[in-house]
């Protein structure tokens, strides 16, 4: 957990800043973006290993952002946040390479568990990419 960097992407700035604070209190380094374009920039400049990405955003949608993240850095693990009662969007996202999805509002413990799992997956995929 020590060296992982998590990028939180959601157009609700109050949501991501507060969530980032809560993760930091638990020893997880978190940076934030409020648009898909901003997230894509940070993917290349700040090199986060994990992305927590809201699906419904103005401009570049969550799914489009996911596709581009995966094409730039395939080993980055993306956890989707879906705001709907249905799981369809989350499953669509997993087909496009997302690690998993969570329903909003999230449970912080559940998110951290998912981040830990995704970080392990990123570590093994990252090694695979280097070989």
């Amino acid at each position, binding site marked *: 957990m020590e060296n992982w960097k998590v990028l939180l992407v959601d157009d*609700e700035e109050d*949501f991501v800043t*507060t969530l980032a*604070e*809560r993760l930091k*209190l638990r020893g997880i380094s978190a940076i934030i973006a409020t648009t898909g374009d901003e997230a894509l920039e940070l993917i290349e400049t700040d090199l986060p290993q994990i992305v927590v990405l809201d699906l419904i955003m103005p401009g570049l949608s969550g799914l489009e952002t996911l596709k581009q993240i995966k094409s730039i850095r395939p080993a980055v693990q993306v956890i989707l946040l879906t705001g*709907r*009662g*249905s799981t369809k969007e989350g499953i669509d996202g997993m087909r496009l390479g997302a690690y998993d999805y969570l329903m909003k*509002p999230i449970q912080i413990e559940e998110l951290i568990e998912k981040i830990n799992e995704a970080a392990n997956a990123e570590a093994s995929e990252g090694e695979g990419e280097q070989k």
Partner: protein
Amino acid sequence: MNRDEIAFMGRMTARMTHEIRNILAILKESSGLISDILSLNKDSSFPHREKMESSLSRIQAQIPRGMDLLTQFNRLAHSVDESDVQIEINDFLDHVITLMECFARLKKVELKILPADAPISFKTDPFPFHWMIASCIDYVLREAPEGSAIKISTRKEKKNLKVHISIGANDEKEITSSDIKDTLPQELAYLEPSLKALRSRIFVIDALESKGILVDIEI
């Protein structure tokens, strides 16, 4: 309303429930952050700490309640998206009841589901099906005395599903033809155009210990 008007209402409602969900998510994380900070400083005391903690727990207890309602309301909004959907009756009744409970609470009436022993799944048009079941519950609710319970039981008979919405203790007893007093009551006549498409019939039940509605659905 025609299908386009209903679809518009569905889209608007789905969008609004999404926005309200975001608001609840911010409230949840903000109250969670205050809780985190209080826990980190649990040994330091300051004036009104106890009141602050109890208010915070009340806020945190209300968020899941709001979320549950929103999720069900969002599901209702999305029920207009498709017209031929596989549903499971116990799950569907849970969904309808969650949304009807606030109406029942106003009359101090309890809504109780007596679930079918095994899952019963079938294809239907979910929005008019929801409308039909909710209308029947509402009809029985109007007759229910304050403090009573409305029981909603289901059972499969050959190719038909029977949903029995009743006031009284007689939910386990099989309904006989003599218990059926009427077909579609006047108050529910507005459902008539939808019944054929839903392959459903509605009967008024007036047995010795049980009054209510029986919905008979060909599945």
